[in-house]
């Protein structure tokens, strides 16, 4: 039984479970090359069923073993203290109780201890993610209220028709009070003095509906609320997957280019999974191939990104951060950001999904009221920052700026041209120059007129960027060079069979019209093509 299955447990049950988990044995066999028991400890993470992603997590742990301070070393090593059973809590709750009572562990930790600590911490955090960040969304059941649900449905129908005046009395009657309550809650949370509440609440009363209508740049409030309703009705494995299912390729363009998915944290994930993806376009291409049309990939990849961040922090040689509270803050920060970005994209690019989510149904009032409350709470943060409510036209969700464009997959014609051009590169003895350039963007040797001509003159137009640059080509080669060479295996077999005497005729028959054909083949041409195959090692192709 793991915590993610059981939910909250009494201390004794959690302690027994923790003892049975035995991360030390798992670490010891992991060091001997058997990842089975260690993999089992990752069960709570969404990436656990994927052997490749799981292996990356364990590899990261082996590369950077945790370095817990003595005060926290006992969190996941040895026997935890015996505490009274008390209330049922999740693993994190018990860990925090244990952390407060742990004696410092003496003596340096061995590698197996450090790995065991990391496996134990990953097991606990993964179970907590499954329990709180996925399971809790599915456990939440709204209370049906036919009258209120019907009123909410009517209101939504009017918003979606653009009948704002028609929606307004329903909104005011049913949702103004929940909004006030949440707004006041935010003021209380920030310890705004009570006498200050009323003027702000009056301002909210007057402005709230106009936020809903919007009219300036960015999404109007009613769409933001509808997106929250959609999110709350998550029926998928988790809210991230649920959002991802609503996204169309054009919307992914913004997701893949937005700072959340191109920043340091996701960058570290991409660097580990696809080390050859050196430029921003190559990184975007990786994510594009992972995510578009595969909405169930966002949860595993987000979880792995978070696990890698945790492992990096635990293993920091100078200032390791190993407290379970810090771990959980990191989990929430990343998951909330990713969820927020995806929600914004659903709002922007999937209006039909929002309309479907607000159709009549049991619990619609409760979902809507909660979404309005969150909206009002967020609006209160404007008061706390600026001492007045934002203007009515100011959208709550910032647009996703600076998105890189999606890369169209190469057409069959372009792929044929590319593979022919690769042959030409090899025949011109510039295979290493190409590999170096695709990985780094720089030239292997300078000056190199031959390589310059291959890029500028021999490369078919279809393989160049719109501005005649080469970023698209580099991204393709960085990720897929091995695949392209492997795909030419039948041609290589024909060339071998033809031998030096029949080489030219075989090449001419296979040559692409967009690629300049070499007039003469040098005596070493076949050897160069053989070397091309031999020199192409896996480059982390997706």
């Amino acid at each position, binding site marked *: 039984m793991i915590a993610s299955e059981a939910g*909250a447990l009494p201390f004794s049950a959690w302690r027994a479970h923790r003892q049975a988990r035995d991360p030390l044995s798992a670490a010891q066999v992991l060091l001997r090359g058997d990842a089975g028991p260690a993999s089992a400890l990752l069960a709570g993470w969404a990436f656990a069923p994927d052997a490749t992603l799981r292996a990356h997590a364990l590899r990261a742990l082996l590369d950077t073993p945790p370095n817990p301070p003595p005060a926290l070393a006992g969190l996941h090593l040895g026997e935890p203290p015996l505490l009274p059973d*008390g*209330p049922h809590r999740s693993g994190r709750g018990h860990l925090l109780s244990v952390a407060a009572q742990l004696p410092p562990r003496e003596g340096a930790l061995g590698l197996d201890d450090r790995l065991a600590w990391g496996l134990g911490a990953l097991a606990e955090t993964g179970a907590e993610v499954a329990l709180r960040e996925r399971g*809790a969304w599915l456990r939440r059941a709204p209370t049906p209220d036919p009258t209120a649900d019907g009123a909410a449905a009517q209101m939504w129908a009017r918003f979606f028709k653009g009948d704002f005046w028609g929606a307004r009395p329903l909104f005011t009657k049913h949702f103004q*009070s929940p909004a006030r*309550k949440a707004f*006041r809650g935010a003021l209380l949370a920030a310890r705004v003095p009570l006498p200050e509440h009323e003027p702000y609440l009056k301002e909210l009363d007057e402005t709230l509906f106009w936020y809903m209508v919007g009219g300036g740049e960015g999404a109007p409030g009613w769409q933001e609320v509808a997106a929250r309703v959609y999110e709350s009705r998550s029926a998928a494995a988790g809210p991230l997957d649920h959002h991802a299912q609503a996204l169309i390729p054009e919307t992914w363009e913004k997701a893949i280019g937005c700072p959340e998915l191109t920043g340091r944290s996701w960058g570290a994930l991409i660097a580990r999974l696809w080390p050859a993806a050196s430029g921003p376009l190559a990184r975007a291409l990786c994510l594009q191939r992972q995510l578009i049309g595969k909405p169930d990939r966002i949860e595993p990849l987000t979880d792995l990104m978070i696990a890698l961040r945790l492992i990096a922090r635990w293993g920091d040689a100078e200032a390791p951060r190993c407290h379970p509270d810090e771990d959980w803050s990191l989990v929430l920060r990343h998951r909330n950001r990713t969820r927020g970005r995806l929600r914004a994209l659903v709002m922007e690019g999937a209006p039909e999904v929002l309309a479907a989510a607000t159709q009549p149904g049991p619990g619609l009032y409760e979902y809507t009221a909660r979404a309005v409350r969150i909206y009002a709470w967020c609006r209160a943060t404007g008061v706390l920052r600026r001492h007045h409510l934002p203007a009515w036209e100011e959208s709550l969700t910032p647009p996703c700026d600076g998105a890189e464009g999606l890369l169209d997959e190469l057409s069959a014609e372009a792929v044929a041209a590319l593979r022919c051009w690769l042959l030409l590169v090899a025949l011109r003895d510039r295979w290493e120059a190409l590999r170096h350039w695709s990985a780094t963007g720089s030239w292997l040797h300078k000056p190199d007129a031959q390589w310059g001509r291959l890029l500028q003159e021999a490369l078919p137009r279809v393989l160049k960027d719109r501005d005649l640059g080469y970023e698209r080509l580099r991204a393709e080669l960085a990720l897929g060079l091995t695949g392209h060479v492997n795909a030419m295996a039948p041609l290589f077999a024909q060339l071998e069979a033809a031998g030096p005497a029949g080489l030219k005729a075989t090449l001419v028959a296979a040559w692409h019209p967009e690629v300049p054909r070499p007039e003469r083949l040098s005596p070493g041409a076949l050897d160069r093509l053989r070397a091309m195959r031999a020199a192409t090692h896996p480059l982390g192709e997706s």
Partner: protein
Amino acid sequence: MNHAQYCAYVADVLHPGRAEEVAEAAAADPLIWAELQSLREQMYEPPPAPAWRPPPPRHPLGLRLGAQPMGAMSGAEATRVRVSLPAEADRSALLVLLWRPERGDWQVQLPTRPTQVRRVGQLPVNADGQPFLEVIARPEAGPQRWALILAPAAQPIDWSLPEDARWTALMAAVEAGAAPSASLAWPG
């Protein structure tokens, strides 16, 4: 867990996992439970009372008003503003003018007694055929707003009602868009 999370829990804005955590903590700790109870009382909100909620200045759902400062002294904000209504405004509608300081309640400025009732058709008209009126700001009140409401002729003001009930029906008409309205900010 902290005070802010308890507030968020009572306001029901936490995502489900966080809400579960707080619920478990409250079940385990009477002090937390008591704090949540206290917050519930502080956050109680009665159903919304009728109120004036005209569209904010320049809102597309509001009446299209023109505002022309009159007689401004050099470097000073004019306190007299000529407010024009759209030329197509319903001439039979009754004109209701509200005023409020930046942080305060709307007050009916016009009409405050039956003899002050004016229809749009009784207003002077400018060269563009737009009815207009002039309003005068109170600089001592700081930033302030006016709101103009065109009450449907079919919904006359019931002067027999006490003042706090007199405007309830018109407030509802504004709320539903049946009485066109708009507001202006001063300084503009």
